[in-house]
């Protein structure tokens, strides 16, 4: 697909994804979990955007909403400049081919009754690709993720977590996508295996010119793989910057707290800095004003009343009243 130069590959503006909460005998609507509540993000072709945040911040909902696996409640979403939310069924099918996802848990995301060959051939069959040459393509896919072609005849239970995740990546590549959402793809793996999978993803990106949205709670992993990093808190991006910018000088107090809380692999300094007190509030009832103000050591009056706007330049933007312009 071609689009005007400068048009982002994928663009979300003011996205809301609310999940209704029901209560009582009649199951009446009783509020909503605001998983995404004013989510803005542009992703350019060829870049890797890391999306980081704690559990419940909405990062997985963001990944799924961007792929229209979950319908947003409100807001707009474009793919190569075209309106993704009002696409014809045919155009949507074409989009599905070009945008894929890799899930966290390679144990539940692969059908245990299908052999690896069938798992990889299924997306090709659905999209009518490589008819008659599915087996060759399957072999190629396995090789491209560092597995032996003979594995096509085996079943998921015969593989370790790391190998299964390679299969899940091969499946995502089967339709020759240009965009892949990787939702915590290494979180369930041992560290030595994590490094192998991250290497694989980096190598595939270079070779195939892929664009990634890489979702993780682990800043170490995010730093390794991202070009830009977006930090989410309660349904919104609170800070987004080029990787080296963000890690050199995080501006949002939440980002700073997140960095400070991570144990560092350097012994000798027992240094916990629990700079954010308490826990993440419920997304069904986020605090007024800046959502972080209840845990923020620097909060002042304005933070409790108004949500801060996103400010800053192209390379580093932040939503915080400490940085009002």
């Amino acid at each position, binding site marked *: 697909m071609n689009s005007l130069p400068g048009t982002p590959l994928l663009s979300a503006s003011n996205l809301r994804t609310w999940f209704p909460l029901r209560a009582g005998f009649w199951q009446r609507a009783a509020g909503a979990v605001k998983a995404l509540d004013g989510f803005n993000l542009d992703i350019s072709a060829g870049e890797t955007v890391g999306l980081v945040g704690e559990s419940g911040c909405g990062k997985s909902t963001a990944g799924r909403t961007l792929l229209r696996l979950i319908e947003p409640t409100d807001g707009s979403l474009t793919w190569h400049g075209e309106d993704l939310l009002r696409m014809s069924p045919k155009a949507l099918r074409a989009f599905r081919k070009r945008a894929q996802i890799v899930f966290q848990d390679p144990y539940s995301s692969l059908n245990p009754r299908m052999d690896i060959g069938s798992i990889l051939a299924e997306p090709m069959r659905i999209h009518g690709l490589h008819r008659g040459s599915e087996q060759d393509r399957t072999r190629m896919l396995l090789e491209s993720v560092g597995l032996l072609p003979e594995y096509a005849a085996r079943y998921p239970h015969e593989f370790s977590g790391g190998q299964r995740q390679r299969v899940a990546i091969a499946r995502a590549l089967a339709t020759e996508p240009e965009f892949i959402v990787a939702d915590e793809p290494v979180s369930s793996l041992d560290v030595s295996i994590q*490094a192998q999978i991250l290497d694989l993803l980096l190598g595939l990106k270079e070779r195939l010119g892929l664009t990634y949205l890489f979702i993780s709670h682990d800043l*170490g992993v995010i730093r390794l793989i991202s070009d830009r990093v977006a930090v989410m808190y309660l349904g919104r991006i609170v800070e987004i910057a080029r990787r080296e910018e963000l890690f050199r000088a995080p501006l949002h107090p939440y980002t700073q707290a997140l960095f400070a809380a*991570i144990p560092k*692999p350097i*012994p000798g300094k027992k*240094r916990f800095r629990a700079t954010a007190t308490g826990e993440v509030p419920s997304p069904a009832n986020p605090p007024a004003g800046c959502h972080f103000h209840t845990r923020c050591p620097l909060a002042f009056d304005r933070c409790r009343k108004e949500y801060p706007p996103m400010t800053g330049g192209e390379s580093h933007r932040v939503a915080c009243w400490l940085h009002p312009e």
Partner: protein
Amino acid sequence: MEANVPIAPDKLDFDAMPLLEVRDLKIHFRTPEGTVPAVDGISFSLEPGEALALVGESGSGKSVTSLSILGLISPPGFHAGGSVRFRDRDLSAASESEWLRLRGKEMALVFQDPMHALNPVLKCGKQVEEGLRLHLGLGSRQARARALELFREVGIPDPERRLDEYPHQMSGGMRQRVMIASALACGPSLLIADEPTTALDVTVQAQILELLLRERDARKMGLLLVTHDLSVVAETADRVAVMYAGKIVELAPVEDLFARPRHPYTRALLDSIPDLEMDTRDKPGRENPFDGNPLAGKSDDAVPRPRRRLEGNVPDPHRFPSGCRFHPRCPRATGLCAAAEPAFDGRAACYHPLEYAA
């Protein structure tokens, strides 16, 4: 705490002996495909007030080790040799009634997942009171008062109300605090924490680790921390035992282990940590950019990448490799490594350990 009364009546100097001494412990599992040596001859000791970390990847035997110390191995697992001494007692000879007196009172366990470790139909306060009444014989009013103190001590906000809440009404971090309160209730001298923060978010993880260390200091407890996370180890442990395929491959004080790992597996584990900073392993004393003022930056823009890769997977316990079990993945392996198992020399079990200039 007056609760901390040793069960042995005679006057032994408990401070002079290790709190826990594991010697050549073997825990095997019977399976249809043969016997699996999940823990295969490991030895270590733990002093009062010390934090020892057992580190390893999945399947290394670290959790089985912690369960066996508490006498919680059940079929198909069995004790295949070696001993566990707790203070002056050999636990392999302990009867079930002795175990009931030991567990929860002298030694306590904090699990990874507080949702499954707490009783869902019992109020959180009651779960803490249970141990107090059983082990210390407190009445219900006293037990409740003590539970309230404990809730306060572990930093549960609004503790009075929380006593009457059920686990599902609490967040993961709060449930983990309840579990820690319950583990601390009877003043144990040994606390085993098995992946205590793995299910928690980082900002909450920092709070819980801080709490565990504070309690360790306040009570001079021995803390056995079982984890896969080397960064958690770096910030909490005094000594570290690295496990691989049922064996301890290296055991050292934490600074030494991180600065000068001897076993190639330890080195590989350290190298595979996705690091927030670059080159820290080359310069262990280097300042951390997030210490003190988090805005005080550093100018290093190089792409951070782990330097070396550990190929392959943790071996299948049904078919552990001969000799050193790490040899098929080891860059330093020779014919000797495949032929015979290296002995543990007090620091590492390796024929070709990494050497460092003095």
